[in-house]
């Protein structure tokens, strides 16, 4: 039987806004922390995969970390960049070619919503000129249909955001560190109906680095071992509803997350009922709701009851987005998917402090989703 790839070190640069420190420097900060965490030096790292959307090519990090001649490959997969870097790093160790390497992601975005170039998505210029080139519209339209189809109240969207900010208060690396009550969330200015300002995450800054090793190498290091039981990345199937779509098929189909999740559970030999904690992509409140079902944790429509009863709270049956997710941490594109894994590593080690999930969790799940319709899933086990 093939041995597991293990996470032996994790580092994070706080998310949010850090004046005077560029995105790549935040990445270096996270790498140094991850190295210290695993008790190794940069020269011990045999390879790296990394990426950012707005802060340069990750391989440039060697200028500061050391010119060791390491294989360092840049990854770019939208919001799934971090998940994809991790996926590639896992494969490199599984193949037997390497024993120890790194996945890293970082970013620093300007304030305000992302504004994308139509031609980068194979779209005509008029699409942007006429006012369709906004991810927020897609999110609003998608969750509007979902609420309608599954009879979920708008208030459920508010409860997701309320939970995120509540968890963020307890998280050192979170950006938003104060609670926001449900009334404030529901009565805040509407951005793209049915989503108000507090239901969206904002582009932000931050960085995460993870050191990965073969099981044999991990044992030699003598650090707490977190096993990567699955690392899967998938793109969209026919009939899915993705960002920047001038048309979508009348006949509805599956989702990138749905197929990534199924494959990840198969790879791990587990089912949703075996998972103790989950970090799910919550670009906005609606995404967390949809992803709860797409990853198999509940049926569509059950989310309303889940949120009402606090089943996805830190003390609930399946804590979701324990560090406040993207809503409280903000979204630096390159780092976001790795933040989820970082949070799970900390939770499984039992060192998450005030936000520690009770009951010694043993398994943890992450799912990151990004344009133009990609999803990456990991399953960790202590």
């Amino acid at each position, binding site marked *: 039987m093939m041995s597991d790839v293990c996470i032996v070190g994790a580092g994070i640069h706080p998310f949010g806004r850090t004046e005077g420190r560029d995105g790549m420097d935040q990445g270096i900060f996270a790498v140094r922390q991850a190295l210290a965490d695993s008790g190794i030096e940069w020269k011990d790292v045999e390879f790296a995969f990394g990426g950012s959307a707005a802060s340069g090519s990750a391989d440039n990090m060697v200028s500061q970390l050391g010119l060791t001649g390491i294989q360092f490959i840049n990854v770019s997969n939208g919001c799934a960049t971090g998940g994809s870097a991790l996926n590639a790093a896992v494969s490199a160790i599984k193949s037997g070619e390497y024993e120890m390497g790194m996945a890293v992601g970082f970013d620093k975005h300007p304030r*305000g*919503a992302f*504004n994308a*170039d*139509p031609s980068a998505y*194979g779209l*005509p*210029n*008029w699409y*942007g*000129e*006429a*006012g*369709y*080139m*906004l991810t*927020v*519209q897609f999110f*609003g*339209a*998608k969750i*509007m*249909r979902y609420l*309608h189809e599954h009879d979920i109240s708008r208030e459920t969207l508010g409860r997701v955001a309320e939970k995120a900010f509540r968890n963020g208060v307890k998280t050192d690396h979170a950006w938003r560190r104060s609670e926001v009550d449900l009334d404030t969330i529901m009565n805040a*200015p*509407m*951005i*793209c*109906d*049915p989503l108000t300002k507090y239901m969206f995450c904002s582009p932000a800054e931050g960085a995460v680095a993870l050191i990965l090793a073969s099981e044999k190498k991990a044992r030699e290091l003598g650090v707490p071992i977190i096993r990567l039981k699955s690392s899967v990345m998938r793109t969209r199937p026919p009939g899915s509803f993705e960002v920047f*779509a*001038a*048309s*979508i*098929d*009348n006949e509805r189909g599956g989702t990138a997350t749905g197929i990534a999740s199924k494959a990840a559970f198969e790879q791990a030999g587990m089912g949703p009922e075996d998972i103790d904690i989950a970090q799910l992509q919550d670009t906005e409140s609606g995404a967390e709701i949809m992803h709860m079902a797409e990853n198999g944790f509940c049926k569509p429509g059950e989310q309303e009851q889940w949120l009402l009863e606090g089943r996805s709270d830190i003390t609930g049956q399946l804590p979701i987005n324990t560090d406040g997710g993207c809503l409280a941490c903000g979204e630096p594109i390159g780092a976001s998917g790795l933040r989820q894994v970082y949070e799970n590593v900390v939770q499984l080690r039992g060192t998450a402090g005030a936000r520690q999930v009770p009951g010694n969790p043993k398994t943890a799940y992450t799912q990151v989703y990004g344009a133009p319709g990609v999803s990456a899933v990991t399953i960790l086990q202590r």
Partner: protein
Amino acid sequence: MSAQPIADNLFTEDMSALIGARNRETGQIFFPLPLTPDDNIEPVTLGTRGTVWTYTVQRFPPKPPYIGPTDPERFKPYVVAYVSLPGQTMVESRLTGVEPDDVKIGMEVEFTVIPLDPDAPLEEQKLIHAFKPVQGE
């Protein structure tokens, strides 16, 4: 010189319908026509009646490349919907002739053309596609 379509190959010549694309092999219909001609893709006239499958409201002025009004004094929130055209596809489109708060999923709508900026001088107006509620039924 009068108002002009925002782009070529968007509307039929009389501007009574949108031009979509059909994959000759799979029969799949989508919108708009690809930028690069493809032997496998043929133009198809899209239906002019459909229903609202979902929608949202753009409540703040977009950044470029948007070329409509962005001055907060003049910016009016606009409805963006996916209109299901039976047997064809769902087209992303503005809704017009209905207040944002009155839009309903499942509403019957029909095709129309509107200026991106109604306050612009006629000769500078760019025309875009929209759907409006079907009246009197």
